[in-house]
Each structure stands twice: as structure tokens, then as C-alpha cells.
């Protein structure tokens, strides 16, 4: 049907309805007239006859309603009538409406945001064809780190995947001939695009036929976004040669716009063949089986009909084969399949999001309880109106429908407002780049699913709180109420309303408790001992491979860099650590360590797997790590001298029993060489703030040169000036070397980001809980004061003290607050396990948290009862008694 015709039919329906109503009206009038005619004939006056006829007929409104119903198809009519009436009623009490809509908007908004994020992170498949059969492999608890050789075996020996692709991260200096800048991308196996079934936007992708052994495929594929920003959509870019870390690569294609790789948080700027990674990064990862750095994730489509457990068994069988064949280099860990996108973080993210969704659900429940209480109070206030309507012949069903319409109307308006707010917030989150230096983004975009869920929740909650006053209406006795007025009785008995309020306060107390626990946990981990001092330290990260250095040039150049830093005025100490400094990018590497006497060096007989940081002399002083025993490393600990290492306290105690025992002793590493412990430093955090204390070793960087390193520059000068000096010094050394500078504190923000986000979201939910409990208590207290104004006035007139008046007016609200808070606090403590999985070092049995919650809830109570209390105290009994 076209629009004008539809509108016409709608109009016709409308006018037809008006005419019907008029018709009905006239018919009933005619009936009464005829009856009156008859009565008049029997001798009464016309007026008396008409009055009599009307009385005989009974409630006309009811008859009309029943007629409407009898005609059927009037559901929409009634709905429209109800909606109009509801709007009128809501307009009459704007403060109630605003409060209700606001409360619901908040709750629905919170749910929509959490759902939107959950949808983006967990529910929505990646932007690739047939994501449902695409699985990634995860080894043990590690985020899928495996070596290239293991990948090749897995690819060739499994029977359950159609094909397996793998990728690794690649951070390179990309030089188009103008200025070299750091770009981050993926080094992928040649079959990567074929496995993912994506097709190029421009040019072509590389494939298996391009690959003929190490460094055979110098091809580059750009992501659409990078092509757009760095190459300004230049279609002539295909076939151009650019320098990756001083090696020529040919750009052969551009990926389609919606292709963002297979990781949710990180999208690559470019893709290059993994066989060429050695050429670019200077580290041969293709031929080392024992490494954990070769491959980040291995994934592929399952063959049709293969189930996940079958594939897992298959992968584990290959793992068992590898362990048997390469006992020295491969330790079997049970492998699982995970959806690609979150790799092994999936479990934690899922758990956190589920927890958050649960809390958001609690918020909604609290809001419903809050609104249910408000509606019950409103229905009580309107009992006179309800009674009148009942007396005039309206059906109870109709009145209930009316009340429910009102509730649903509020819920829809509130839901819409909340949804709009959440869409704005989600949109912002999706373009938010918390770290300009790192290619991280939140893959959220609100879609129809979010809208539907939000509106469904709104409707559901509308029915939920709309249903609260039902019993009240059903039990209304019109005769009693019309006769006695609406003052009603004020019983000592706890009503449904009280229960709702106590329940709501309990929920809010749970939320407040959980946010306090989270805050406290966060605070604790911020102040925990990191094992270094991030303040006043600047991290200068370089990768010498990007400027073409390799082999023995590396330590020489690094030494020169350290000395150059030392000449900068105001710089106190300079140290260097290979790859990344502790806690950066969660990128620590581990080493297998054996006892000195062990001869069978298979991974299973390792005594420890400490983190390994190759550091320069002075590193510990620059980083602010305390030396507990022995000596620091020095410039003579180089390739020509025996292998030595500094270890941390935990390592010393685990392997040698005590700190003093450790100095001078030996341990063995994977390649069989003996390493002497020369010093012991304090413990610290290495991968994450949540980790248990881990062992760590610090061999001298001169004994195992690597191109990528972080310089630690300690200075109390303004970091920006220091950074500028650092850059100019390094430019003097080599103008073609890309340099990143950042304070250590700023870099830690990245590590703390998930915890910060978790704490923030819990904090926001806690604040929402607090707001809800304020409105709930306020509503209840204000209502009870207004209901009992007269009684309070009389009490005052009879000489009651202020304290007694307050007790009468607010006693119940305070009692409910106490009961609710206690229940909530207990529940919060019980929920500690859930919380501990969300926020680390979270324990609600912390006295600070307990007193904090009690204080917060009492403060909220005070705040919420303040205005009603003032009102109760300012009653002038004379005016009141005169008025009524």
C-alpha cells in the first residue's frame, strides 16, 4: 500500500470511530427517551421520568465500553484511549514523571552500554566470511604463542582443519622515501588470505605460490585504513617499492575496507609474509622450535562435519607427537580451540563481561523496585480516583490496564532516552583510541540487536513495576474509600512497598560494595611494589633493525646510544633492556632454567621458568631496582667472558634457598651453558600487576644482542625537554632510526588500562546504585512524611519533641535502610568470588571496604532523608489543622 492511501485509510478509520461513538451515544439517549415516554404516560413529570429512566439504565459508560468490546477490533482504540489518559496523568505530575523516566533511562542506558560492549566483544562474529567454522588454537594458558616449526607440523599433520594459517606481530620502520615511521602489522603465513577467504580491494594478495623459503617474498599488503591515511587513497601505489627496516618490499595489494584482521582490539596497518620476517627483524624465528615468539596465533576453518572436541583431540594428538619427537624443545600443554578475535583472553573477557552484565541487570532490577514503589505510592494516592471510577461502573480490568499503560509508557520513554544516551556513548567508545602509539581500539558499534534488547528490557521492566500496584487496585473497596477519604490507615505492618525498598537498597548496597572493593583493589595494585620506580623515568624504544643494523653492530650501537644519553644535562642514570621493559605490552619472555647438575635438558625437567630481561650495566640504578646482594653487571660481562646473570629474590630463594646462598652459584639454561649468579635484586612485577610473585633473571645484554630495546633514562627534568634532547642526540647518531619516547608512567597506563576500565565501569555502576538508593529512600521518606503531615502536626501540637517527630516520620525509612544495607553488604561479601575474578586483590573482607560501605550507605541515607526531615520539622500544626 502506498503512503497516501494508507494515511487515507487511517483517517477513515479515525472518523469512522468518531461516528460510531456518536452513534452509540445517540442510540442510548434514544433508549432512555423512549423509556421516559412510557414512564411519563404512567403519570410522573417529564423531568422525574427522565431521571428515573437514567437510574434504571445504570452506568452508561460501562455499557459503551462493553459495546466497543462487543464490536471487537477495538484493542487499538482502548490502547489509544489509555495512552492519552496516561499522558494526561503524567503531565499532571511532572516531578514523578521526570524521576521515573530518569531512573529508567539510567538503568536501561547502563544495560544497553554493557550489552553493546558485550555484543562487540563476544557475541558478534568478526568481519570475515563464515566466521562460525573459524577456530584459533590456544596452548595451555598462554595466548597462543608457538614457534613457526610447530605451526608447520600442526598444519601438515592435523586431519580436522581445511587449512591452518598463522600470524605474528611485526613492528617495522616503513620508509616511503620521505620519512621513516613506525608501522604495526602482521607477518602472516602465505595462505593467510586464502584461509580467511578474503579478497583484495586493489591489486592482489600473496599466496602459497609466492613463498620459496626464507626471505623469498618481499611483498606488502596494506590495510584499507593505512592506505587511506598514509598513501591518500593513491591507486598507483600498487607495484611501488618501499623500505621495511631498510629492505625493499613491493606493495602488491590493498585489503578491503571491512577487513581488520582477526584480532578484536588490534587491526594491522599492513600484512607481510612471515617468511620475510627474519630479514626485517634480524631474528631467525623460522628455524627455532623452542621459541615462543615465532607465531602469535594459529587458526583455520574446520572441515565440514568436524566438531570442536574432535578437532581439539586432533590438535592434542599432534602435540603429543611433537613432544615425543622433540623432547628438548617442546613441552605438551593441553590445547583448546577458541573463537578467533580474543585468543586466550577470551575467557577472562567473557567472565568480566558476564559479571558486568549481571551487575547491570541488578541496576535494572533496583530501578524496577524503585519505580514499583513509586507506582504503588501513586496508586495509593489515586485510590480515591480509582474508587470513583469503580463506583461509576468502570471494570477493574480496565483500570489495571490503564495503570499498566502508564507504566509501559514511562518505560518506553525512559528506555528510549537511555538508549539514545548509550548510543552516543558507544559511538564515542568505538572511535576512542586510548593510546595513540598503540593500534588499539574497542570494536563496538551499536546495532539493531542493541536497540531491540534495550527496548525489550524497557518493556519488561515496565510490566514488572507496573504490576506492583495490581493487588492494591484489586482490593480497592470503592464504598469505603469514597466514604472515608484517601488518608487510609497507616499500619505497623510492612507492606509490599517496604519490601521493595529494602530489596532495592540491598541491591544498591551490593553495587556500592562491589565498586568499593574494585576501587580498593585498584588502589592497592597501584601502590604495590613494582620492583622499579616508574616516576622520573623515560623509556626510549628503538629497533636498530629498522635502520639496518645487525649482528655485532647491535651492541656497539646500543653502547653508543647509552653514552649519548648520559651526556644529556640533567640525566642521572641510563640503562638498557632488550625488547621491552618490565610490564610493557604484557610482552615478557620466559626462559627454561635447570639445576646445574641436570643433564637431560627437556622442558619438563626445568626447575623454573623465570622471566628473562637482558639488561645493561647501570640498568638497575636507572630503573630504581634495589640490589640486595652481590654485584651489578658491568661492561666486561660481554661475549668474551663467562655467562653471568643477576636474578631476583624469588629466583634466588626458589632455586638456592636464600639470597646470600645464591651469589656465586650456577644454573643451566636451555642451550646447556652454565650461568653464574653474580647478584640478587628485589622482586617486582613483570607481566601484569595481578600476577603472583614470579622469578626473573637478568643476563647482560652484551652476551645476547638483540635489535629491539628500551633505554631507561632517569632524570628529574621536564620529560618533554628530556624527550626532545633524547631525539636530537639519537638523530646525531643515526638520522634514519625511528625513535619512540614516553614516560614509564604513561607506558604503564597501557598495562593498567583493562584494570582501569574495569574499575571505572564498576565505579559507574556503584554510583548508579547510590543514586538509585537515594531516589528510593527519598521517595519513600517524602511520601510517608506527606501522608502523615496531619498526624505529625497533631503530635507537635500535643507537645512532641523534634526527636520524636523525626522518629515517627522517618523511623521506617531509616529502619529499611539499615536492613537493606546489611543484607546488601552480606551479599556483597558473599559475591567476593565473582568480584575477585574481575578486579585483582579484591577482598570485601577488608575493614576499609566494610566501613566504607557502611559510611557510604549512611551518608546516602542522610542525604536522602534530609529534605523530608526538614519538611517534617517545619510543620506548623496550626496551619495544617486549619486547612483540613
Amino acid at each position, binding site marked *: 500500500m502506498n503512503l497516501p492511501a494508507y494515511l487515507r485509510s487511517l483517517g477513515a478509520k479515525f472518523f469512522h470511530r468518531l461516528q460510531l461513538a456518536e452513534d*452509540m451515544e445517540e*442510540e442510548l439517549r434514544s433508549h432512555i*427517551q423512549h423509556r421516559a415516554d412510557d414512564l411519563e404516560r404512567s403519570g410522573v413529570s417529564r423531568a422525574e421520568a427522565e431521571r428515573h429512566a437514567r437510574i434504571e439504565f445504570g452506568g452508561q459508560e460501562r455499557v459503551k465500553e462493553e459495546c466497543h468490546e462487543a464490536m471487537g477490533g477495538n484493542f487499538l482504540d482502548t490502547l489509544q484511549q489509555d495512552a492519552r489518559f496516561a499522558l494526561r496523568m503524567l503531565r499532571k505530575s511532572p516531578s514523578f514523571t521526570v524521576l521515573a523516566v530518569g531512573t529508567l533511562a539510567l538503568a536501561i542506558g547502563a544495560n544497553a552500554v554493557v550489552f553493546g560492549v558485550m555484543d562487540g566483544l563476544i557475541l558478534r562474529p568478526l568481519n570475515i566470511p563464515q566466521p562460525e567454522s573459524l577456530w584459533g588454537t590456544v596452548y595451555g594458558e598462554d595466548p597462543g604463542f608457538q614457534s613457526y616449526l610447530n605451526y608447520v607440523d600442526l598444519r601438515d599433520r592435523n586431519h580436522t582443519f581445511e587449512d591452518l594459517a598463522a600470524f605474528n606481530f611485526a613492528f617495522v620502520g616503513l620508509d616511503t622515501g620521505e620519512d621513516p615511521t613506525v608501522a604495526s602489522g602482521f607477518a602472516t603465513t602465505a595462505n593467510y588470505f586464502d584461509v580467511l577467504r578474503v579478497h583484495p580491494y586493489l591489486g592482489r594478495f600473496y599466496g602459497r605460490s609466492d613463498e620459496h623459503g626464507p626471505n623469498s617474498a618481499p611483498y606488502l599488503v596494506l590495510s584499507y585504513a593505512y592506505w587511506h591515511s598514509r598513501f591518500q587513497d593513491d591507486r598507483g601505489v600498487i607495484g611501488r617499492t618501499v623500505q621495511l627496516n631498510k629492505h625493499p618490499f613491493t606493495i602488491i595489494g590493498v585489503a578491503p575496507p571491512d577487513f581488520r584482521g582477526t584480532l578484536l582490539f588490534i587491526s594491522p596497518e599492513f600484512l607481510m609474509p612471515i617468511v620475510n620476517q627474519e630479514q626485517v627483524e634480524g631474528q631467525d624465528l623460522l628455524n627455532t622450535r623452542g621459541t615462543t615468539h615465532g607465531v602469535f596465533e594459529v587458526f583455520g576453518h574446520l572441515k565440514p562435519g568436524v566438531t570442536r572436541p574432535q578437532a581439539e583431540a586432533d590438535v592434542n594428538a599432534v602435540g603429543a607427537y611433537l613432544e615425543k619427537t622433540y623432547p628438548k624443545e617442546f613441552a605438551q600443554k593441553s590445547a583448546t580451540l577458541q573463537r578467533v578475535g580474543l585468543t586466550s583472553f577470551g575467557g577472562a573477557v567473557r567472565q568480566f563481561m558476564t559479571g558486568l552484565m549481571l551487575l547491570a541487570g541488578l541496576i535494572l532490577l533496583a530501578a524496577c523496585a524503585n519505580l514499583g514503589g513509586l507506582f504503588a505510592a501513586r496508586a495509593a494516592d489515586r485510590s480515591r480516583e480509582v474508587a470513583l471510577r469503580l463506583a461509576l461502573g468502570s471494570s477493574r480490568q480496565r483500570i489495571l490496564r490503564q495503570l499498566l499503560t502508564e507504566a509501559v509508557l514511562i518505560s518506553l520513554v525512559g528506555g528510549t532516552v537511555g538508549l539514545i544516551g548509550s548510543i552516543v556513548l558507544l559511538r564515542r567508545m568505538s572511535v576512542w583510541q586510548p593510546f595513540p602509539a598503540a593500534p588499539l581500539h574497542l570494536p563496538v558499534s551499536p546495532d539493531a540487536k542493541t536497540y531491540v534488547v534495550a527496548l525489550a528490557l524497557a518493556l519488561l521492566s515496565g510490566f514488572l513495576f507496573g504490576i506492583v500496584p495490581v493487588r492494591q487496585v484489586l482490593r480497592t473497596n470503592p464504598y469505603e474509600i469514597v466514604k472515608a477519604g484517601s488518608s487510609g490507615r497507616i499500619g505497623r505492618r510492612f507492606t509490599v512497598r517496604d519490601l521493595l525498598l529494602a530489596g532495592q537498597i540491598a541491591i544498591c548496597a551490593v553495587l556500592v560494595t562491589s565498586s568499593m572493593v574494585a576501587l580498593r583493589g585498584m588502589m592497592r595494585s597501584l601502590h604495590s611494589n613494582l620492583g622499579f620506580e616508574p616516576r622520573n623515568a623515560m623509556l626510549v624504544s628503538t629497533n636498530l633493525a629498522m635502520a639496518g643494523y645487525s649482528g655485532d653492530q647491535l651492541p656497539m650501537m646500543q653502547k653508543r646510544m647509552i653514552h649519548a644519553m648520559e651526556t644529556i644535562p640533567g640525566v642521572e642514570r641510563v640503562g638498557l633492556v632488550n625488547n621491552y621493559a618490565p610490564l610493557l605490552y604484557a610482552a615478557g619472555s620466559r626462559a627454561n632454567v635447570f639445576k646445574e647438575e641436570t643433564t637431560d635438558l627437556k622442558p619438563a625437567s626445568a626447575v623454573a621458568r623465570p622471566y628473562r630481561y637482558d639488561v645493561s650495566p647501570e640498568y638497575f640504578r636507572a630503573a630504581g631496582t634495589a640490589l640486595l646482594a652481590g654485584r651489578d653487571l658491568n661492561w666486561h660481562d660481554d661475549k668474551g667472558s663467562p655467562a653471568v646473570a643477576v636474578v631476583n629474590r624469588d629466583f634466588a630463594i626458589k632455586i638456592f634457598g636464600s639470597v646470600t646462598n645464591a651469589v656465586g652459584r650456577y644454573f643451566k639454561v636451555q642451550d646447556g651453558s652454565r650461568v653464574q649468579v653474580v647478584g640478587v635484586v628485589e622482586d617486582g612485577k613483570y607481566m601484569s600487576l595481578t600476577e603472583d610473585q614470579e622469578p626473573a633473571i637478568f643476563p647482560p645484554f652484551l652476551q645476547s644482542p638483540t635489535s629491539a630495546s628500551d633505554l631507561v633514562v632517569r632524570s628529574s627534568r621536564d620529560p618533554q625537554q628530556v624527550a626532545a634532547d633524547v631525539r636530537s642526540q639519537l638523530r646525531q647518531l643515526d638520522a634514519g632510526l625511528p625513535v619512540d619516547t614516553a614516560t614509564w608512567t604513561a607506558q604503564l597506563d597501557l598495562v593498567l588500562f583493562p584494570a582501569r576500565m574495569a574499575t571505572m565501569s564498576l565505579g559507574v555502576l556503584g554510583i548508579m546504585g547510590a543514586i538509585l538508593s537515594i531516589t528510593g529512600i527519598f521517595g519513600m521518606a517524602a511520601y510517608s512524611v506527606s501522608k502523615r503531615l496531619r498526624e505529625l502536626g497533631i503530635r507537635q501540637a500535643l507537645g512532641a519533641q523534634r526527636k520524636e517527630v523525626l522518629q515517627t516520620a522517618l523511623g521506617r525509612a531509616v529502619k529499611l535502610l539499615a536492613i537493606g544495607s546489611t543484607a546488601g553488604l552480606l551479599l556483597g561479601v558473599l559475591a567476593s568470588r565473582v568480584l575477585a575474578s574481575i578486579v585483582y586483590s579484591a577482598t570485601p573482607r577488608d575493614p576499609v571496604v566494610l566501613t566504607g560501605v557502611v559510611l557510604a550507605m549512611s551518608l546516602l541515607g542522610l542525604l536522602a532523608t534530609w529534605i523530608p526531615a526538614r519538611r517534617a520539622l517545619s510543620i506548623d500544626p496550626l496551619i495544617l489543622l486549619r486547612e483540613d
Partner: protein
Amino acid sequence: MAEQAQLLPGTLDLLILKAVSLGPLHGYGVLLRIGQISREALLIEQGALYPALFRLVRQGLLKASWGTSENNRRAKFYELTTAGRKRLQEETDGWNRLASAIASALKARPEEV
């Protein structure tokens, strides 16, 4: 006035159809006619009449048109449609069968069992 009988559920529609089948009537007229043909034994509540009339119109058993009554007032007159006539016949037969069955059942004596 004769003693009044309770109206069985569902019989109101039948009575209305019967009343209207004797000639077009307006609402009040239907009431009077039912009273008349039941010898004042059946009294219809005024309020219950109209919903029933509207229901029958919707079912297509009655049709309505405005006209002028014997009192010279505007009134809405109802008359049977063909479907209404048919339905009246069916319902009458049904009712008669039921009534005679119940009557014979109630007349039963112990020796007949």
C-alpha cells in the same frame, strides 16, 4: 407481574433474534417485545441489551438503520439478515431438542429406569 425466570447464558441472543424476527425493532422495543412474548416472565437488564445487539450486528446476524419510532423519536432499528434468519432457525431447533430432552429426563420415574 408473573414470576420471573432466570435467563440461561447464551439465550439472550436467541431471544433478541426471535423478537426482531417478528418485525424491525429499536433497542427499547426489543426489551418490550421480549417482555411481551415471554408474558413478562423474562426481564432483560437494560444495560446488557446493547452489547448483545452490537455483537449480533458484528456477526452479521442483524442489520441496523436509523428511522423514526412510534413516539416520533429518532431511533436505530434492527432487523434480521438472511444469516440471522438461518441462525434463528438453527438455534430454535437446538433449543427445542435440548428442552424436550431435559423435560423428558426430569419426568423420569423410578419404575422406568
